[in-house]
């Protein structure tokens, strides 16, 4: 694996993480705001379920904005994950509130929303290749133009590994946070 691939993967990782953190923060805030009453929670679940279908038009939105030279993958991560994170944060927070504010119940749901959003955004890598100046998308496009098939294979393997590791990291973080905040587990450990 050459140095430029590692650099590109690093840039992609940073861009993806920033976009995911941003959408998680906004999604949690919106989810929190909508779980004030039972009625608003049910309405928001229906609305965000409907809005999550808009993830299907993200590649065309990115193609339309190709002249703006925005980081396509990061934008896709933000747009795809926002509705899913809000939807699953609403479900998680509602379940926590129904169980006397047991917040550990909310984390698996929130991490599921983040994982779904991330999984849905990887197919937009092709558009990212077309308009990006940095990151692994640019690396793949550059390798394709120079006819370097070995770099393309390594690049794709790198993105797959990155996608899998990020997914597992979010999954394990959700499980660990949930276990740490679980009062029953804490009681068992102290006794």
């Amino acid at each position, binding site marked *: 694996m050459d140095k430029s691939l590692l650099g590109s993967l690093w840039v992609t990782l940073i861009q993806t993480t920033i976009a995911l953190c941003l959408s998680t923060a906004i999604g949690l805030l919106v989810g929190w705001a909508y779980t004030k009453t039972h009625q608003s929670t049910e309405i928001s679940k229906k609305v965000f379920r409907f809005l999550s*279908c808009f993830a*299907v038009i993200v590649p065309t939105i990115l193609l339309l904005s190709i002249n703006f030279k925005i980081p396509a993958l990061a934008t896709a991560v933000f747009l795809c994950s926002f509705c899913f994170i809000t939807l699953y944060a609403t479900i998680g927070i509602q379940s926590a509130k129904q169980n006397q504010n047991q917040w550990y119940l909310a984390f698996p749901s929130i991490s599921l929303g983040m994982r779904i959003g991330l*999984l849905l955004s990887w197919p937009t890598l092709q558009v990212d290749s077309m308009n990006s100046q940095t990151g692994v998308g640019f690396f793949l496009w550059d390798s394709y133009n120079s006819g370097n098939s070995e770099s393309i294979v390594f690049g794709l393997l790198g993105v797959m590994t990155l996608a899998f590791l990020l997914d597992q990291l979010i999954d394990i973080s959700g499980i660990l946070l949930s276990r740490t905040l679980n009062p029953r587990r804490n009681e068992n450990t102290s006794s």
Partner: protein
Amino acid sequence: MDSQSSLLINSIFSTTIWAVVLLGISSILGAALGWLCGQNFVLAAVSQRVIQFLACWASVMASQTFCPVLVIALFTTIGVQRAKQNGNQWHFAISNAFLGIRLGLILFFTITQSRASAGLGGFIFNAYNNSDTAGMVWGALSILILAILFDQMLNILEKYIVNSMSRSLSA
């Protein structure tokens, strides 16, 4: 009707047929694979990681054939395990399988736009190559409407199956 409109209608028709066929086969295969993998706790834990890695591969490669199958299999495995852990409450498995089908559907329509060869993806790329912004917007709107319609149908089907299951259990 001008040629652009008839081309759009043809693209919608071919994408709908392809979506019904592919998602139908993917649902059967994915649910069967998920059912098998979810039978045992250790098998479920290992297969979840393996299927997740393969799903990442299919997602990065924008594979319209494998992505929905793997996502449906992943969520069915989780659902079957959850159902077994909660005293064979199979509505967990059904709900998770439908979540997988829903995500498979969204992935299918997202990947459609990366496929410049045929259907609505071909229509959008053709419009993009001709710098036809209106054509791209119409193509994207068609995909969105198809996705919403399929999603609502899945929602109704899921509610019907879960309700009939709980009715048969209480009878």
